[in-house]
């Protein structure tokens, strides 16, 4: 996972070395905010898309190990970013990679452009590639690999960038 030329691990190491507990950086439309809690989690788990009152969600609780993300939504809301949400156009099983042993199509922080494949939704043995129709940076992956996604469920949050940036 990269922010500019820095690897996330490098940033965390720098923070440790300089006893910094909070760090906030912006660069070319990219934003990162890292807050280290007392338990010093390396990165925060992506919270669930919050269901409306009385609504039942199919998504299971996320495993932080399988879903690293740079930013939790709360700080992002403070920064005031408006994210483009990619919703599931069909019901099925969500896969981040083209094959079980392949690397994921995208990671948080990746720059994506119109037509890039973000994930696969398997429906009735058919692998449906889900492509992005904006340019931007992946800010959040909201669904755990291999889980059931329902119609309209938010899969990714993307910070839109202009085509020439």
């Amino acid at each position, binding site marked *: 996972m990269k922010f500019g030329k820095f690897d996330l691990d490098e940033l965390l190491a720098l923070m440790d070395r300089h006893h910094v507990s909070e760090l906030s950086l912006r660069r070319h439309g990219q934003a990162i905010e890292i807050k280290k809690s007392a338990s010093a989690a390396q990165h925060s788990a992506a919270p669930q898309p919050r269901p*409306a009152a*009385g*609504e*039942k969600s*199919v998504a299971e609780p996320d495993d932080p190990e399988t879903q690293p993300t740079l930013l939790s939504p709360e700080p992002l809301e403070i920064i005031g970013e408006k994210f483009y949400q990619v919703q599931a156009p*069909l*019901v*099925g*099983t969500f896969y981040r990679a083209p094959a079980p042993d392949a690397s994921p199509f995208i990671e948080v922080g990746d720059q994506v452009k119109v037509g890039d494949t973000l994930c696969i939704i*398997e*429906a*009735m043995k058919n692998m449906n590639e889900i492509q992005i129709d904006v340019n931007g940076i992946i800010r959040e992956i909201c669904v755990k690999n291999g889980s*059931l*996604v*329902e*119609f*309209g*469920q938010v899969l990714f949050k993307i910070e839109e960038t202009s085509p020439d940036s």
Partner: protein
Amino acid sequence: MIAKLLVANRGEIAVRIIRAAHELGIKTVAVYSEADRQALSVRYADQAVCIGPAPAAESYLFYQNILSAALSSNCDAIHPGYGFLAENPLFAEACRALNIKFVGPHPLAIRKMGDKASAKKVMQHAGVPIVPGSDGIIHTLAEAQTIAETVGYPVVFKASAGGGGKGMRIVNDQRELDGAFAFAANEAQQAFGDSSLYVEKFIADPKHIEIQLLGDKHGHVVHLFERDCSIQRRYQKLLEEAPSPVLNDELRQKMGEAAIMAARAVKYDSVGTVEFIFDQKQRRFYFIEMNTRIQVEHPVTEQITQIDLIKNQILVAAGKKLTLTQDDIRRSGHAIECRINAEDHRNNFQPKTGTISQYIVPGGPGIRVDSGVYPGYTISPYYDSMLAKLIAWGNTRKDAIAGMRRALREFVIEGVTTTIPFHLSLLANEVFLRGTYTTNFIKEFFE
């Protein structure tokens, strides 16, 4: 056995199926459209999956999403309820291909019974009485006359392409035949672009009486007596009762046996209903069609037999043998169901939308309410207008009517116009009380 069941429906029937499944120890997955996020079935099910936007074609009828939801949530069976995909042979076949149990009959039975003309042929072959008439399209007046004389007047011309009374003409005697033939052919041509007609015996005071069936995958079929569903408006049933006030035990047994013959003809292996038209004057019955699904009015039968049809439907779909024999099935008392719809009966039964502000269901001895609504529930314009089924049981028909009247008065639904006042006036009507009402009753008394 089935471990996890997806309920591919909405409203009260989804709730009914989830209840039965949970009592059998089966986990449930509800599916819902974006308009049904607040549905009771979504709350009651162990899991819920949104399958599409409000229009049924993109959600409850869109079976790729439904099948995908079943596979991804590890369901081993799907219950289609009634309507939507319940009588779609392609859906049943798709379930089979994906190794998901379809809680309904085998696809070929759905296919054979789905087409009215082919169903009639199957029944005729099996010896089940059908309305006597022409074998397909008639081409000449002379042909029509021969048939009319064989089956006896009155007869009726019907448009082969038709429905809704267009191209239909009743003929009381031979003198009317010529004019009626020309008139019906002309009307059929104008309405459907096809002038072909068929002719059959006209039944003047018909009752709609249906027999409930239950079959398993091991060749056993039983019937659970009849329901009288003659109170209908434009083929939509409004009130059903069992037993029928006009049948005696001899006729009841004959109709039950005919329905079992019909079921055997297609190796029927689930719950289903054979519908008959009953000629009150001649005391004869004729096959109309078979519904290869659970029906809205099934609770009427459950109340008089104390047999849970939905649980049995799930069990036989799982491959269980029916332990019931025909002799085990007894009936007791009388049951009536009123469909409480969000409709204005004074205004041509126009469907109404709105939010239910107050909702107090009746109770007490013999009362059952199957519903999918609650206070705060909003009735959307996307689906049918049924809010609840109110079922009253009594030792006699008179007792059941008294119980139903009392329950209708107790039932409080505020925020939307309902058919409760219509049912109260229906239950006070003399013809209804006599029990001899026909399928023309609503047209004659309420329109």
